[in-house]
């Protein structure tokens, strides 16, 4: 992540002519205050949803227990924060930051996994971040979102089948769990986040972000 203390892109400058830009590529990856606050807010909102998902996970995983490993289908509920943050903020580190804040908030409210949540959040965030980085933070289309969700799914699939009680399952069940987690990440984290960002952009709430402007511009062209 690259943070600087200069703020030339703040809303105070909105009415003035843009200042000459020495390095436009680097500038686009700088975090403004509004980026940090919005990423934090998305992280906090996601953290509350993570916590609620953790409560629902108990009965839901029992319902899926008839096939060992299908519990992985629920993993996506903890993966969407990173994809959502990455899609909205569109800056390096956004996916990791949002997912870690979400994990920290859910751990602070209280989950049975406690401190482990933070490690999971970090690695899941890295899983999504790598995909956005592979596209140089330039492309945020549906299939990039799906890939980012799948990337987070690979991360959680690896963590869960290696470092939790699922490590005690036999190889077939572990593979089922891994594939379920990737599918869940792709659908719950990738697809739903992409639709959420589209819905948010349509309301105009993302007008201060590239994600909102691009979607609205596309909608205007279509209309």
């Amino acid at each position, binding site marked *: 992540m690259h943070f600087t203390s200069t703020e030339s892109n703040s809303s105070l400058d909105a009415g003035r002519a843009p200042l000459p830009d020495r390095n436009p590529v680097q500038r686009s990856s700088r975090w403004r205050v509004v980026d*940090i*606050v*919005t990423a934090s807010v*998305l992280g906090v909102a996601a953290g509350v949803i993570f916590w609620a998902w953790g409560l629902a996970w108990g009965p839901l995983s029992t319902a899926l227990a008839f096939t060992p490993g299908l519990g992985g289908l629920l993993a996506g509920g903890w993966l969407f924060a990173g994809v959502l943050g990455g899609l*909205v903020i569109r800056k390096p580190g956004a996916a990791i930051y949002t997912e870690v804040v979400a994990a920290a*908030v859910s751990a602070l409210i209280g989950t*049975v*996994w406690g401190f482990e949540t933070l490690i999971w959040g970090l690695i899941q965030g890295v899983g999504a971040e790598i995909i956005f980085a592979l596209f140089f933070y330039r492309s945020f289309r549906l299939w990039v979102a799906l890939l980012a969700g799948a990337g987070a799914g690979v991360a959680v699939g690896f963590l869960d089948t290696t470092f939790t009680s699922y490590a005690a399952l036999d190889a077939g069940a572990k593979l089922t769990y891994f594939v379920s987690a990737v599918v869940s990440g792709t659908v719950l984290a990738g697809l739903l986040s992409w639709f959420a960002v589209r819905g948010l952009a349509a309301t105009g709430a993302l007008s201060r972000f590239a994600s909102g402007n691009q979607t609205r511009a596309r909608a205007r062209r279509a209309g």
Partner: protein
Amino acid sequence: MSAALDPYSTRPGVTARHFLHALNPLAKIAGPLPFMVYLLFVRDIATPLAFACLALLLVTVGARLTPRLGIALWLGLPLVVGVLSLSFGLWTDASRVDHTPLLFQLGDYRFFLGAWLIGLATALRLGALLSLALIAGLTMTGPDLVRALVQHLHVPYRIGYTALAAYRFVPRFRHELDGIRHAHRVRGIAGGRGPLAALRRYLGYIVPLLVGAIRHAERVALAMDSRAFGAFETRTERYLVPLRARDWIFAAAFWVIGASVIVGTARLG
């Protein structure tokens, strides 16, 4: 003498005896942290049990606990660990433990003692991690942690304080959610009764809630920008969160005691 770090708002009932409240948050995290990582990789029962007891004793002696919290820690936590040990045990691959005594059988499903012991070890690890996290969690405040991170670990204050401001949004979300529910009800968007209608109703809250959150974030960012937040490399603090000799002593003592717990349980096992 007040035991709290913040001289402007002391918590009622915290006295000098509750020494954990007077320590730097970083010391309370640095002490247990290596053992929390270690606990992720242990598979026996004695080690997490010993660490859970150590953490609970420390919290009971050094933190101000309400009677309800004390009961939750000493009775509730073991109960949760017990229930989790059964549910984790149910997941364990039976073929790996079928040489151990059979506890019960339901149709084709057989529950072995070995499966329960693996479940117990996992549940105890979670319990121990939670107890260790409570040493810092129960005795520090978010602002103090952020101040300590900024002052001693050189975390950029722009991130620290912004994340802190965002954590205050949790109560704000509840307020927003109430408003959205009322607005939906006024417009007659009830969707009928039953769990499916309730699910659809809750899904309908997500986008308005996120929109409200982002708008609020924009206003906060605007307010911070207009007060020149982030204009300088450093900033002043309302009060300092010092790293004193007592903090080093606490962390070092915790490491020594934790290491001897590991050695002791290894000898026993």
